[in-house]
């Protein structure tokens, strides 16, 4: 079934996320550096009164982050998971730094010609790949964006940043 998705480019690939998982798309913004965070976290920034992490999508995909440009965007996405320490109210937004937002349109990732994807244990957030008018687009599932050990690391860093 086609679902409205936000399509962006990171590390030379086209990725997409369901629009219902995106809280807001922001222009490139400055983030506060956090001490000793993993290399895929650019830092922390304030979103609607809450301090949330800013994740670099290219680094998360294993590529090097290109120089910052005006067309860069920050996708504020809902991350829902079962760890009650992080999500006392069920939703925990995270900023995702992408190279550029290409478009927003309907994509059927459940279509017959869609590829289910080959997610690794550390890359479960990468979903199926669909052939679209923009090219091959792979679905990103924010609920699988972080592995449990990454969440533990984030919790420690957020607690350090809060103090």
């Amino acid at each position, binding site marked *: 079934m086609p679902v*409205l998705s936000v399509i962006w480019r990171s590390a030379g690939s086209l990725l997409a996320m369901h629009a219902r998982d*995106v809280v*807001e*798309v*922001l*222009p490139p913004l400055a983030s506060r550096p956090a001490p000793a965070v993993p290399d895929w976290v650019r830092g922390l920034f304030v979103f609607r009164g809450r301090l949330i992490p800013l994740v670099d999508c290219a680094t998360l995909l294993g590529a090097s982050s290109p120089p910052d440009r005006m*067309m860069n965007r920050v996708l504020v996405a809902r991350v829902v998971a079962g760890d009650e320490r992080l999500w006392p109210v069920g939703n925990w937004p995270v900023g995702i730094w992408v190279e550029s*937002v290409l478009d*927003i349109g309907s994509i059927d990732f459940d279509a017959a010609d869609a590829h289910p994807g080959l997610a690794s244990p550390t890359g479960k957030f990468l979903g199926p790949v669909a052939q679209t008018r923009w090219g091959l687009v792979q679905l990103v599932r924010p609920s699988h964006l972080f592995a449990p050990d990454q969440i533990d690391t984030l919790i420690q860093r957020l607690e350090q940043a809060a103090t």
Partner: protein
Amino acid sequence: MSTTPFTRSLAGRLLMFGVVPSMMAIAAIVTLSGMDGYRNALKAEKEVLAADAEGAAAELGTRNQRWGYIASIIATNQTTGLFGKRKETSDHLKGMNALSDQNLSMFVVYEPNADGQDSAALKSADVPREAMDAAGRFAPVWYDEYIGGVRTGVVKLRAAAGMESMAFYLGPKNDFAKSGQALATITEPRAQDGIPFLTHSFPIIMDGKFVGVAGVDRSLAFISQLIGKVKARTSADVFVLSPEGTFIAATTDSAPQAAGAAALEMRRISDTSYAPSALRWLAEPKGEQPDAFEAHDPVLDEECLYAVKRTEVGGWTIVIRRPLSECMRLANASIVRNVALGLAGMVLVGALLYFVSRGITTRVRVAAASAERIARGDLTRPIPESTSADETGQLMRSMNSMDGNLNALVGNVKQAGIRLNSTATEIAATSKQQEASTAAFGAASNQIAAAVKEITATGRDLARTMDSVNRVGQEMAELAGAGQKGLQGMESVMQDLNSGTRSIADKLGAISDRSQKITSVITTIAKVADQTNILSINAAIEAERAGEVGAGFLVIAREIRRLADQSAAATLDIEQIVQQMQSAVSTGVMEMDRFSDQVRRGVRDVATAGMQLTEIITRVNTSTEAFRQVSESMQAQSEGVQQISEGMASLASNASQTVQSAHEFGRAAADLQTAIATLREAVARFNLRE
């Protein structure tokens, strides 16, 4: 806005998927709890009835055992010394009978001539005649006198009769004959003088031989009193049945065959309407514990609870009956109360869901109407504020914020369009002015080139005539004078050329400044297009979140994003064209600087040539050598003029390129105006608030 059927509306679905399952769940809970409560209450009632039956059976069994024990004491007294002592025996019976008011009589009956005194006793006066039958058989019965069913307090003596056919005598006798043991016997109830009673008897065994029985007649009134107490405590009917199927006692007075409870006593079960039920009563109980069960009562014609227990002594069957409706009155009342509470809960849940869904539906309808109005481009009215804390309230506030941002955005885009249009018009005018200036510059360059060609021809003519100067000095002097005049004209033209060159340089500088302003405006347009792109994406996300009602706005957001992309693309084109123009202008400035230097040098050369020509004219008149020097100077002049000619050709070429660049710049400005017109047309459909 189209009207949604109630079954497909938000309120309808909330009621359908909220109230109906809740009602089904509450109904299931009430039903199951009611069934459990009913079963538990029924079980408790059975246990209470069983306990009452067991208590009554224990009490009656104890009393049977006690009366059997009294009969055995009378018999034992016979075997331990009183047998054959008829007077003492009669007196003993009379004394024993006075000890209790529950017994009607006490007796001893001997076998015919068991003590060998039957014939002698008839003749003796020691033993009352009433203690014997006609044959002298000893059978004294001391009994309380009743008249009209009332005890008189008088104790009388009579002789027992008919004992050879009665159970109180045959029972112990036959039991002893069969088992060789002395066993107590309880007879079936019977009546005498209207007083119901039964008999406890015990055999008298002398030297292993049955010689008679001893016993006591016991009134059934005390049994009726006992079970009456049970009924008073439990409001249940109690029946006492003999092993032979005779009612010993009963508390019920509702038997259709009789007017009172006493009517059942001493009647065979088979003669009453209880016959179908009593057969089961006699078959119960199957174990030591009382049996409790439900059955239809043929007399009351309703379902009743029964508890049945048999006494250990006498084998009487104790039956306690209580109507099921009476037993379960409290349980049924509890079930009715639970059902009423369940119905009240369902009504409450339905009412709460209705009010909640009505509030949500109202806000969603307001949001849908506002989104439809915004889709029509009507931004003149604000979206009503919502104080609700739920998601619909957040939707209203988000749409309100979106409406405000959209209002500001469209307003900014309109103002930017106006400013862009003004700037583009200014650019187009400047471009035309530049083109005209450059064309004038080209014409001046052609004029200069023609003059330079003339100078060249004149110089060559002078050089060729220098050889004959010596011969025709005067002619040369005249020619030199003509050359001096030509040089003076050329100097004037060169001054004009220098002035024109400075004007062109100033114009190019102005173009460069304009280009810088255009670049600043283009940067502003690019930022606005970038913000518009982000805003359109967020608007599309919010429209998706709004569901079906946001589908229309999704199209608007996509159109705004497409216009923003077109603006960004047009901005890139303009930026590229401006960069090309700036490059061409820079080249033109450099060439103009170089040309200015050449012109200034040409002016100086012309002045020098003029002075030299004057000197030549002076010296031509004095010496040939001087004319030779003049000839050489003319040669040098010719070379300088050649350089001027080449510079002018280069200047003319650059002017042509500048004209072409100005033309392209004008065309780009026209494209920009077209894009701005498209943008203004797109935002013109939005009406803004004052």
